[in-house]
């Protein structure tokens, strides 16, 4: 194969994969701490895309500036969903662990409600943000880099680094990690576990809020957009290791490059089958993922 085309493909794959990883961060964080597989992950992204869109369309806010709206709004929504909808389940469980299937079903309910409320409220029309300025395309050798995707991918790496650093060194971050590792011991150390859970869910959604704003400039928005990203996120997170923050970015880039390179040889549909197959294989052979601990 033409090496130029191949390097194009790899660069595209890395950029896109970085965005996949960034979008999946929240899913991984929430699973890592709460052991909840958030089926509604994509729906939250869809909502933040809509928020970014309406900010642009009604208030004339640049999508990149709308992060100041989407991030707090999504944090609030995530906090609310955890403390009002999911936490009764955690309180109910006698064994004091969330029964993963109930949580999955609960978030599946959230997914149905959010996606269809969006359909009722915004209608089925596809919408898109249009900005009237041009960002210059930086060049990587002979390859031009798409500026908007580059911003997304860089943001993903930065957010992952920042999140890891914050979890490692901040007071709240340590509390979150402690709660993830041993809920009871955390409570016995004076950590307010329900609060930590709600904050974690909020942060997971806030990250989605950020990426909603970052991809809004180039992503058409419709009520069903969440599903596409949701499925991608599951694949990415399983590949990188459920709960692993760096694994998320690595998993995203692996999928991105895999699909980009594979698509040059086979059709995109076969590449989609391939990534689903990879997903199954990883679950069966190495369920902890690429970066996850055994």
């Amino acid at each position: 194969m033409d090496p130029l085309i191949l390097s194009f493909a790899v660069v595209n794959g890395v950029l896109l994969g970085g965005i996949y990883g960034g979008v999946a961060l929240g899913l991984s964080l929430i699973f890592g701490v709460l052991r909840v597989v958030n089926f509604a992950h994509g729906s939250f992204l869809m909502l933040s895309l809509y928020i970014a869109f309406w900010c642009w369309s009604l208030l004339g806010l640049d999508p990149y500036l709308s992060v100041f709206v989407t991030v707090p709004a999504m944090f609030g929504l995530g906090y609310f969903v955890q403390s009002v909808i999911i936490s009764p389940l955690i309180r109910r469980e006698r064994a004091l662990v969330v029964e993963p299937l109930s949580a999955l079903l609960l978030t599946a309910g959230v997914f149905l409600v959010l996606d269809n409320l969006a359909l009722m409220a915004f209608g089925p029309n596809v919408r898109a943000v249009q900005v009237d300025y041009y960002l210059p395309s930086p060049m990587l050798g002979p390859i031009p880099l798409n500026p908007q995707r580059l911003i997304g991918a860089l943001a993903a790496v930065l957010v992952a680094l920042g999140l890891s650093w914050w979890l490692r060194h901040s007071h709240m971050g340590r509390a979150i990690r402690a709660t993830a590792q041993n809920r009871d011991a955390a409570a016995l150390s004076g950590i307010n576990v329900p609060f930590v859970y709600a904050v974690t869910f909020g942060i997971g959604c806030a990250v989605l809020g950020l990426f909603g704003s970052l991809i809004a400039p180039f992503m058409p928005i419709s009520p069903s957009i969440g599903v596409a990203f949701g499925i991608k996120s599951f694949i990415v997170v399983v590949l990188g290791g459920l709960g692993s923050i760096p694994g998320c970015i690595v998993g995203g880039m692996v999928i991105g490059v895999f699909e980009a390179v594979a698509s040059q040889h086979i059709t995109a549909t076969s590449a989609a089958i391939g990534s689903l197959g990879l997903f199954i294989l990883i679950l069966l052979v190495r369920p902890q993922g690429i970066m996850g601990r055994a």
Partner: protein
Amino acid sequence: MSSPALRLTNLHAGYGDVRVLRGVDLELPVGAIVALIGSNGAGKTTLLRTVSGLLRPTAGTIELGGERIDTLPPHRVVEAGFVQSPEGKQLFTGMTILENLIVGAHTPRARARRAETLEEVFELFPILAERRQSPASALSGGQQQMVAVGRALMALPRVLALDEPSLGLAPIMVDRLFESIARIRQRNLSILIIEQNVFQVLEMADSAYVLENGQISMSGTGEALLKNDHLRETYLGL
């Protein structure tokens, strides 16, 4: 008369419809070491979980220094000053020793004095200072127990509860641990200790309670219980 450090009155608790505690009365005077002994399944750990707020009592009251704490969530109980080092150590295995200890000082009160308390814990368990950057999972059983006790101390407890601190430790380590506990005592804490290592703990404790089937069947000073033939017969089967 000042109120005791911890007082349980007619405490009932259980899991679902399984009743574990059936009316426990217990008093821990300020500055004392009180031992709670009993066979497996007698409800010792359930008692600690209930006091800590992990389990809601179905009846009865829990007072810490005269204040009711039986409706508080776990983190408020810690704030109020009751801290336990749970059974089986329950360390945060993905964290270093230092991080484990720092997480222990989570409440605002404890955080304000974090550096000093840390110094004190390191003084108490010098080995932890040496290995502060090691992951908790790489420690020996005795060292892990030290981390667990140290982590509880970091929260600046008024009442420290130790659940089976000698579990799984080599005899020499048990001795050392008990020595440390004796030293902690000098910090003007009240200590509630749950042990299966009956004789050693009875020697150290000011008084002790025997828990059987969720009820206190016997109590008294450590010495008196040691001499009590009934205890030996019923509890030890000798």
